[in-house]
């Protein structure tokens, strides 16, 4: 009896104590939190927010040497309003921009779809396999650990004119020339590197699904396909959505792979990042900043749509642990007021969107 009494008491204890303890614990934590968070936030403002704003400003200026109306050479920046943006959408630069825009979008859609399918398949295999799990986990991390530049060179070597790819396929394709073949080589290289990574994230999601759910489905007579579409997919969806979102944003800024694997100034694989880089490299910062700003807006829009439409729960666990905080909706209201495009968008919908984990 004497031992059972404390046991019976125990579950009640934290419930009674928690709110009281937390409120006293919380007094003045706002200021402390602000103090402790400030180094990180200051650094992020300096290396992320400031550059974004300054790119926006830069895109409205034209810098470097040019000839003024009287034929004198002028140095320094000049305010040109939206001219840089207007120039992007005119004549030859417009063709180049839309080509890069198309390439970026095409790479993103194709790669992410391929990687997701392959990744999910890999995760299912790894989940089923009991033998050799250690080997798989080790080997799956290898493509992830190889620097993108090195993997680009590796695939360039594989896709060399007299390289192994042509030898195996029995073809004479010049992979690194303009056309579908260079696009395909970039897609293959990207898929190789990141599909295992998605597999890893999805596997982690799969492992959180309790066995009982599957047993119940079996008892109810579900076939494997039904089990997959009705149980596995919905339950890994939160993990999968976050993985896919990160992959989409990552592929939208793809640079290293086409730049090293195929090369700069190849129109079939030129992406927005490469275009902006090439402009900046010729110290034409105005147009470069305009391209970068457009890419930024594009990325922010895609992220916003993704979170809004599909309800990807990006900060998942973090919020789940602080329901009290969420109910007060201190976050939610303020997010809506925040003008910063992507930040506000992402948070607002993240807070609103998620039944989540």
């Amino acid at each position, binding site marked *: 009896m004497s031992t059972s009494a404390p046991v019976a008491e125990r579950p009640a204890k934290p419930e009674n104590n928690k709110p009281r303890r937390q409120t006293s614990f919380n007094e003045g934590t706002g200021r402390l939190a602000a103090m402790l968070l400030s180094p990180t936030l200051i650094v992020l403002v300096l290396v992320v927010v400031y550059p974004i704003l300054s790119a926006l400003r830069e895109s409205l200026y034209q810098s470097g040497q040019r000839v003024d109306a009287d034929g004198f050479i002028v140095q320094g920046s000049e305010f040109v309003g939206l001219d840089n943006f207007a120039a992007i959408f005119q004549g030859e630069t417009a063709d180049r921009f839309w080509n890069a825009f198309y390439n970026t979008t095409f790479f993103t859609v194709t790669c992410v779809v391929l990687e997701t399918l392959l990744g999910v398949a890999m995760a299912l295999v790894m989940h089923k396999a*009991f033998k050799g799990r250690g080997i798989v986990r080790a080997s799956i*991390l290898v493509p992830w650990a190889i620097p993108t530049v090195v993997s680009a060179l590796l695939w360039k070597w594989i896709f060399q004119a007299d390289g192994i790819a042509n030898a195996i396929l029995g073809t004479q394709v010049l992979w690194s020339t303009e056309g579908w073949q260079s696009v395909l080589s970039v897609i293959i290289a990207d898929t190789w590197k990141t599909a295992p990574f998605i597999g890893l994230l999805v596997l982690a999601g799969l492992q959180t699904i309790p066995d009982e759910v599957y047993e119940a489905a079996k008892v109810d007579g579900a076939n494997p396909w039904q089990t997959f579409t009705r149980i596995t997919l919905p339950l890994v969806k939160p993990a999968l959505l976050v993985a896919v979102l990160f992959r989409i944003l990552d592929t939208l800024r793809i640079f290293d792979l086409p730049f090293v694997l195929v090369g700069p100034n190849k129109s079939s694989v030129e992406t927005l990042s490469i275009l902006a880089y090439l402009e900046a490299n010729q110290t034409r910062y105005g147009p470069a900043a305009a391209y970068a700003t457009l*890419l930024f807006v594009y990325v922010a829009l895609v992220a916003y749509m993704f979170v809004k439409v599909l309800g990807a729960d990006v900060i998942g666990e973090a919020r789940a642990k602080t329901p009290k905080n969420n109910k007060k909706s201190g976050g939610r209201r303020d997010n809506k007021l925040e003008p910063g495009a992507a930040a506000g968008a992402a948070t607002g919908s993240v807070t609103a969107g998620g039944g989540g984990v």
Partner: protein
Amino acid sequence: MAVAEKAPKVVDVKAAEAPWYRRWLPLIGVGIIVLYCLLPFYWMIVSALRRPTDQFDNSIIPRHWSFTNFTDVFKAGTGFGRGLLNSLIVAGTVTILTLVIGMVAAYTLARLDFKFKNFVLAIIITTSMFPGISLVIPLKKLFSDIEWINTYQAMIVPSLSFALPLAVWNLTAFFRQMPRELEQAAMVDGCTPAQAFRKVIIPLAAPGVFTTAIITFIAAWNEFLIALSMVNKKEFQTANVVISQFTGTSGRDQPFGSQMAAGVVVTIPLVIAVLLFQRRIVAGLTAGGVK
């Protein structure tokens, strides 16, 4: 190890009722995945070990093994050795800075309850989503104005933009897994909150901090766009940039042999680290968004 010991038991239970293909299909799948992941990597190693004269020989195992490609890479004038050192300096500094700054923020996010917590979390995760080029272009202009081009700090500072959110996110997940009672016990014993953090939490969080350090280091080591944009002098180029700009002895043709050898040199330390700490790294990678 524990998993390896448990595994056969589970298989036996399943195997008793499953037909043979059920037992072998996952194993075949595993084989395919392993081959998929490792074959290109194997090809890189094998190509690096060929003699430069039969570089274009496509045999699965080199007919003549040779380390010429490796010695070529480190010859004077390639700048590769210096590149490795630069990569180490940049990635190492980024990792240390990130951990020092990020640890405090992560602890705050994991432990303190305050208004705007979700907002701060979302901001931090959002900053990691911005395209690198949008940050690099204005920073490049700024750095050329303050004459930072061709310095280490010009590569280190922008790298914080992706390393810091990554580290904060990982560390927050790790700190959150540690029971609150630890600090409370320390404080009952007379520690101040700062002391509890320093003397109790940091030593216990060491595995998590270490994992975050590896992940951050790998991310910084693999960085290319910033290093390419901020530096144009050979002495300051990182290994990645040096490799991508290798030129052959004859000038025109691509020196694939030495590129593969250099790739192996750059990659092998990472692969070894990954193999040694795979369990931790997987935990760290999946902790952020998934669990």
